[in-house]
């Protein structure tokens, strides 16, 4: 954010903006399916291959090549539709979306237009507010199938990495990977909660897609991408404002921030008497603001028409019901179950969900950690360290590493204090917990003889305190325990020190 530009005096902040304007949302999520082969050909979908090693006449759009749709991709899309409470269309077709841009070698993207495979669903979400949990229903307009585009590398020109000639280099490995687009209807009535509702929707959707096993749903790697539409209208006006569309928002946090950024930007434009331009904008990760994309000279004009090379998809009820029977536990039901199994208080459960820590905590517990310890490490120390670094806690440390640390605590090999140092070491990149422990010599001093030496030294330094304990003043032991802990650099087990000390002083 450019701090050099002074804000006008009447500049609205978020709270002021939503006190005057009602935000309306629309969310479009693109998800790459995790099929082994592409949507319309048998090329591999493997990520990270050498350029143009995963192409064929079909995905290169060579003359005469005929596409055949991937049955698994259709089933995955129907599953997504069913999980989102959609109706599955008895008849659905592919369409050509025509545009001339080299990221698609065919000069069109095979998509669906007026006959999508799933329509009219909804997703119920819950957010935590200062007045307790609030539920919202996000209605789904459609779920349709399409294909991903190739990757362009721009050389030269304003956006290129090398100056000089202006050209683009195309790798079509990604062209034709199955993509599903999930579009909401207009989401209104959220008021000031619009950013949290947007985030909760994308988060719940991600959980559902993950539970269905149809996609990797890695937002950071682009296998799940979100376009956020925001418009504002004056409170109680009953009108709809002009929307902006922020493209490719690639984390849950960014979804929330993009909505906040747009509400603030649009409200201040409206306050200044300016109009909102319907446009595509890009999200700026650093500032949380958006910037306009280059405006297209033409309004979108894709001249869709039915794809003559592919036959219609007409799932019968037998096929649909067979798929419905395989639907896994809904993430919301799973959360209720885990909450009961781990006996988590409401507030803590909400924190775990909002922080996106449910999966890692579950994994940590499955690896042998006590539920209460797994929860408190992820929500406490690890989240604190993540906040300091402004990153997602799950990117700092793995459930396996956390489970290893907790198992060492459970076995008495680490105190909480030592464990914190181990976790910090792991996060700092010093290696696995066992390696950090070895490098830094972070072992609990449980050797009685070593502890007794420290205890005797502490008694010698504070003879009066020792006398009081001998006389029955047990709380006074705290001072001596503290001294021993200090002398052992925090590596002693405090409970053990207390036990030895009291015994030594005849208590």
């Amino acid at each position, binding site marked *: 954010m450019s701090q050099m530009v002074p804000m006008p005096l009447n500049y609205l902040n978020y709270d002021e903006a939503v006190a005057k304007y009602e935000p309306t949302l629309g969310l479009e999520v693109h998800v790459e399916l995790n099929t082994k082969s592409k949507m319309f050909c048998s090329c591999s979908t493997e990520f990270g291959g050498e*350029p143009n090693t995963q*192409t064929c006449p079909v995905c*290169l759009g060579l003359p005469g090549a005929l596409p055949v*749709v991937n*049955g698994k991709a259709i089933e995955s899309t129907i599953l997504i539709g069913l999980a989102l409470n959609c109706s599955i269309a008895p008849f659905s077709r592919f369409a050509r979306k*025509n545009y001339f841009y*080299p990221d698609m070698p065919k000069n069109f993207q095979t998509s669906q237009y007026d006959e999508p495979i799933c329509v009219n669903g909804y997703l119920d979400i819950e957010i935590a507010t200062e007045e307790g949990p609030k539920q919202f229903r996000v209605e789904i307009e459609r779920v349709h199938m399409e294909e991903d585009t190739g990757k362009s590398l721009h050389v030269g020109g304003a956006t290129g990495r090398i100056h000089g000639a202006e050209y*683009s280099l195309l790798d079509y490995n990604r062209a034709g990977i199955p993509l599903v687009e999930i579009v909401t209807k207009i989401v209104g009535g959220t008021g000031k909660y619009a950013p949290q509702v947007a985030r909760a929707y994308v988060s719940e959707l991600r959980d559902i897609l993950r539970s269905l096993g149809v996609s990797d749903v890695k937002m950071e790697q682009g296998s799940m991408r979100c376009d956020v539409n925001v418009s504002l209208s004056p409170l109680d006006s009953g009108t709809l404002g002009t929307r902006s569309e922020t493209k490719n928002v690639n984390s849950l946090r960014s979804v929330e921030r993009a909505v906040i950024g747009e509400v603030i930007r649009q409200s201040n434009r409206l306050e200044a008497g300016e109009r909102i331009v319907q446009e595509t904008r890009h999200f700026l990760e650093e500032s949380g603001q958006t910037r306009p994309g280059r405006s297209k000279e033409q309004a979108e004009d894709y001249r869709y028409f039915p794809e*003559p090379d592919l036959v*219609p998809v007409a799932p019968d009820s037998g096929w649909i019901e067979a798929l419905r029977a395989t639907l896994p536990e809904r993430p919301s039901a799973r959360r209720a179950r885990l909450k009961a199994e781990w006996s988590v208080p409401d507030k803590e459960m909400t924190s775990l969900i909002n922080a996106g820590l449910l999966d890692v905590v579950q994994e940590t517990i499955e690896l042998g950690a006590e539920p209460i310890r797994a929860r408190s490490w992820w929500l406490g120390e690890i989240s604190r360290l993540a906040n300091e670094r402004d990153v997602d806690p799950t990117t700092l440390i793995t459930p396996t590493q956390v489970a290893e640390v907790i198992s060492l605590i459970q076995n008495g090999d680490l105190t909480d204090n030592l464990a914190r140092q181990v976790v910090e070491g792991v996060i700092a990149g010093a290696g696995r917990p066992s390696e950090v422990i070895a490098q830094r010599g972070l072992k609990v001093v449980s050797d009685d003889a070593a502890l007794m030496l420290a205890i005797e030294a502490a008694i010698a330094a504070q003879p009066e305190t020792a006398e009081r304990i001998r006389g029955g003043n047990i709380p006074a032991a705290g001072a001596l325990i503290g001294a021993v802990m200090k002398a052992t650099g925090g590596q002693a087990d405090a409970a053990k020190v207390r036990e030895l000390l009291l015994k030594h002083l005849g208590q």
Partner: protein
Amino acid sequence: MAAISRDDVAHLAKLARISMNDSELDHLAEEMDLILGAVARVQEVAGRDVPPTSHPIPVKNVVREDLVRPSLTPQEALSGAPAQSEDRFKVPQILGEE
């Protein structure tokens, strides 16, 4: 009345990134209008009982198993490309988009 105007053709040419001179635009507008006229006559004949057809044979649900088969080599893939570099297709940069 012409179903397609010269401006329509100019618009399509722009979308297709094909440069056309005035006489080409005139010529194509006339030709496309004839084609559309012919198609429109077919449409008049089709009754309400004839659904719009996108495929000549009434088949549905033709799907492929999700199996990977060998792709072309990059050399094969690029063999028809007018220009290439670093195993990639090399194309003129299109401005106005990202």
